[in-house]
């Protein structure tokens, strides 16, 4: 186990390094034109560009530029040339909001996804299954920013059932916090409910024909017990893995559209707001930290699985 953890962490660090190199290349090397001009945002002055070129070392070799960029990121010395604010500070400010959005939505989509998946699997082939399966497909086909904007307009603004955007801190008033987040949670969950219910449905239908399920039935266990103790537990494994990874992706920037539509001012919206100004530093930082977070959670999930299931660490030992 110790060896597995050490190797998994080493590979995580390697991927993080590669992620940082790729991010650097995307912003500073791949595009055509002067990186200093790009960094400066819309309508920069000559002296600003000159200053940025000096500061970021754009006259130096590419490896040196990479080192400067990383140093600026990790010492919190990177500013947006549009707002003049420190990029890392702004990201930290957004984290509680993004986290609040992700946690609630993840719980909702897991609960509804599993419930819907189980129900449709039990009713496979019947009319209710067809209806709900089509509904799940519609959920997968709708862009979250469109659904969110319509929900915000009709349920929030027109009917006044929910607050029209905005965010209240959890510490200030937990009820108000949840009340302000219900619409964003729902909008963000719709897609995942569609995905999870489809995955779970097909897993349940696979598991239900396994020999051990037949054995459980033959033993005379109640249908309920067979379903929850034998079928569901095994069908859930891939869904739980998916859940960990999707949660990481949503926090690492995947919620950017939901945040923007509902004006939550989270990490994602910080990057989204920078796009219009072509303000590169915030986007660079959010992209890199978002991917770091995803890589980190991936490693944690793998290690967690290896701890629970020895087959996984043995497999990877023999594979390499």
């Amino acid at each position: 186990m110790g060896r597995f953890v050490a190797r998994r962490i080493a590979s995580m660090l390697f991927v993080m390094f590669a992620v940082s190199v790729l991010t650097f290349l995307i912003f500073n090397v791949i595009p055509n034109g002067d990186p200093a001009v790009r960094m400066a945002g819309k309508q920069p002055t000559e002296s600003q560009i000159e200053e940025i070129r000096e500061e970021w070392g754009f006259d130096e070799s590419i490896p040196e530029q990479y080192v400067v960029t990383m140093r600026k990121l990790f010492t919190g010395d990177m500013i947006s040339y549009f707002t003049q604010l420190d990029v890392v500070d702004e990201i930290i400010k957004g984290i509680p909001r993004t986290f609040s959005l992700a946690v609630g939505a993840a719980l909702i989509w897991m609960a509804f996804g599993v419930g819907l998946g189980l129900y449709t699997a039990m009713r496979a082939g019947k009319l209710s299954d067809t209806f709900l399966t089509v509904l799940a497909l519609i959920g997968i086909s709708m862009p979250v920013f469109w659904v969110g904007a319509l929900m915000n307009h009709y349920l929030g603004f027109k009917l006044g059932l929910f607050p029209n955007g905005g965010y209240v801190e959890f510490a200030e008033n937990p009820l108000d916090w949840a009340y302000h987040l219900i619409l964003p949670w729902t909008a963000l969950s719709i897609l995942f409910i569609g995905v999870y219910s489809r995955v779970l449905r097909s897993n349940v239908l696979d598991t239900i024909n396994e020999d051990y399920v037949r054995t459980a039935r033959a033993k005379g266990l109640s249908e309920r017990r067979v379903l929850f103790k034998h079928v569901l537990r095994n069908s859930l494994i891939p869904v739980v893995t998916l859940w960990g990874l999707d949660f990481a992706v949503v926090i690492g920037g995947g919620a950017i559209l939901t945040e923007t539509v509902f004006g939550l001012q989270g990490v994602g919206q910080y990057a989204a707001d920078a796009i219009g100004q072509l303000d590169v530093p915030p986007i660079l930082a959010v992209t890199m930290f978002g991917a770091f977070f995803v890589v980190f959670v991936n490693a944690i999930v793998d290690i967690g699985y290896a701890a629970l299931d020895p087959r996984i660490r043995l497999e990877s030992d023999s594979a390499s």
Partner: protein
Amino acid sequence: MAARDQVATAEAGTDLSLDVPPELTGQKGKGTSGASPWRLAGRRLKRNKTALAFGVLFLLLVGVCLAAPIYSDKIANRTATDQPASDETVTDNGEEILVVGLDGIPIGPTYEKEYFLGADSSGRDVAVRLLYGGRNSLLIGSLAALGTIILGIVLGLLSGYFRGWVDGVISRIMDVIWSFPVILIGIALGTALALGGLDFGKFSFGLIPITVQGDSLAIPIMIIAVVYVPYLARPIRGQVLALREKEFIEAARAQGMSSFRIMFGEILPNVVTTLIVFFPLLIANAILLEAALSFLGAGVRAPNPSWGTMINDGVDRIVTAPTLAIVPGAMLVLTVLALNVFGDGVRDALDPRAKVRIDH
């Protein structure tokens, strides 16, 4: 196996029992003896009426969008970017109304030749923009999906066939792209390339003297194609790893066939099913990603329309003119839904066990 067929039946909503050869069921006619897997798959798909109906719906939507120039020339008399004079009026229910009111609120749907679906805040005809925007969205979606397929084939074949360091390098690159949330790497590339575009000459030592401008449609196409490559290259690689150990590959090698010919002539035909299963679903996801990027301002550039940019315009005016957001969104959902249902049908017909997962 019977139980598995039932599963597939339930998913596809069709009756698979017709695949059982007639000599076993005792039925006459409809001889299936000697039918190729392709023909069987085609037959299964043909029986899946829902999937076929949505496939036809998708083709209809494509046809309507392709007819955009005819509509704008012959019926609406406006291009997608034409802006009317501030005092221009249009007939709505027999009344003359300003295209964009004095309060800045554009005219709503007239359901007549001109401004059938109303105007946007700049007074541009929404129906015309909807069709031209659809052309852009569909063009970007299908070319990006095609790009993903080509890159996925090449990278998957190379790493699965050669293994060793080639596989090591390609797989690590795929891991790294995979680590980025799709939308984030999309906006990162979108903003980085917006200003100066992309100069291929720089990376090919001047061999490919092509410079792509920052506002070109090719930029979102390339971005989306690259972002989805790992989702295809990985399953292809896995299949190639298994296929290369098969006897017919050994035979090909013994005959002295070149690696290139083995990869593209012998192995590729055996992974085509996967490509076909992925293609409609890739287009659906590519269209959604294009819309998301354009919505955030990192995809198609104004004033060029796409469903994403139109939703973006519409959301800004949702309080005064909600149709501006509803209409392009509805078209988008219809298109993506049609592709998803059809894609599911194709998967059920070709390879019901295929695990297709594409992130959003």
